[in-house]
Every structure is written in C-alpha cells, then in structure tokens.
C-alpha cells in the first residue's frame, strides 16, 4: 500500500470499520466496496486484520504481564539463593 490513492482508501476503510468516518467518507467507502472487487478485498483484509488484533492484543498483553511477573519472581529467587550462599560462606568462615 504505497501509492497515495491506496493510502487514502486504506485510511478511509479503517475509519469506516470503526465508525470514525463521517457520513461522506463512510458512503464513499461502502459505494466502492460494493462496486469495486479490489476495494472489497482491501476492506475484507482490513476487517480481518482489525478483528484479529482486537482478539489477540488483550491476550498478548496479559501473557506479557504474566511473563514479567514470572521473570521478577525468578530474579527474586536468584537473589535469595545468592544471599543464602553468601551467608553460608560467611558461616563457614570462607
């Protein structure tokens, strides 16, 4: 999607999908979707991508947060292990 016309219609399609388009933009997109197969294909791709991201992002964000918690716990356990090892070394007079 490099040429200005594709950029323009790509942006309008995204606005139409989310309801952000004004009525003139919205009607332009729907007219072209109904009359131009290549625009219908762009519209369907944008719709599929939008829905995939809506479904995937919350799960990915949750997984990332859990991963960060696991990593923090791993570091805490590592620090605790090192502290105990140092304490043992001191107790043994090393």
């Amino acid at each position: 999607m490099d040429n200005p016309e594709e950029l323009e219609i790509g942006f309008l399609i995204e606005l139409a999908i989310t309801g952000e388009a004004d009525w003139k933009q919205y009607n332009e997109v729907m007219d072209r979707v109904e009359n131009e197969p290549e625009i219908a294909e762009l519209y369907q791709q944008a719709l599929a991508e939008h829905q995939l991201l809506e479904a995937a992002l919350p799960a990915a964000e949750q997984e990332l947060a859990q991963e960060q918690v696991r990593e923090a716990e791993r570091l805490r356990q590592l620090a605790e292990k090192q502290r105990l090892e140092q304490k043992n070394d001191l107790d043994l007079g090393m």
Partner: protein
Amino acid sequence: MESAQEPKNPKDWISELEGPLTRFAISLGLSSHDAQDAVQDGLIALIRTLEKNPDSIRSPKAYAFTIVRNNANKRFRERTRRNEVEMPEHLPETPDEDDIYQEPVVKQSFQAAYANLSILERDLLNKYYVEKWTYEQIGSELGCSAQNAWKTIKKIISNTLTKEVRKTLTQADPELASELFPH
C-alpha cells in the same frame, strides 16, 4: 472528524446511526433481515450504556459500529456453521480470526512479536484496538493528524507484528501462512 453535531439525547442516535449501521452489517455478508437484527441489538446496547454509564463510551458512533460488527459476525458465523448461508462472491471469505488466534503457532509467534515491541508501540496498539481511542484522539496525543496516527499504527503492525508472525508461520505451517497472508 464529525461533520454534524452529535445527538444529545441517547435515543436520537437511532435515527442518526440506523441506516449506516445496516449498510455496514450488510457489507459484512449478512442478509438484510439479519443485518437489521444485528443493528437493533447494537443500538439497544448503545442506548442502555449511554443512559446508565455515558462516561464509559469515548465515541458513541465508534462504539455502535464495534457492537454491530461483533453482533453481525456472531450471527453470520452461527449461520455459516449451520450451512444456512454462504459468503457473497464479491466479499472473499476470511478465516475466523478467533479460531486463527487459537492456533498455538499463531498465538506464540504473535506473542513473541508483541513482546519485542517498545512500550510506546504497545501502548499505541492498546489505545486503538483495546481501549477504542479514535485516530483523531491518538493523533492529538502524538501531535499529528489522524491519518499520520493511522500510518504510525499501520507501520507498527506491518513492520513488526505481521512480518514476524508471517516469518514464523511460513516456517511452521506454510498452508496456514498462505491462508492468512494471501499477498
């Protein structure tokens, strides 16, 4: 972005949105009867929320479109699963994105790509796809136009997420990769 002033009374949204929402639902592949049902359910949900908790909706119009899109897809999928309807020829059938995301290879590659995004990039994607900010609102936070906000988000998706997911999928499951990324 709006050319006219938004309705003040929640019920005025019905006359404002009914036509465009019905056309939108039909564009998703629904029959006109199913489209009307999906729109009616969407408008009822919008009005209930506007009356009970108006501050929870950032943009009533965007909210209604999202609800109708979800309703329409749900109805369409129910009917296609029962083999009652087929996708119109001019609208190529797209895979069910919820099912696709449940594919372990897609989920894992998406999560790996997502974890590699910067905090700013993740924040932008969440604002748009999860918190339902408009491009206008994201643009004004970034200090750019709505169209440039769209380009920024599009670039994050195509340069990182799509590229990484496509790369992993092409190696792990070429058939699914060509289904998801036909071009």
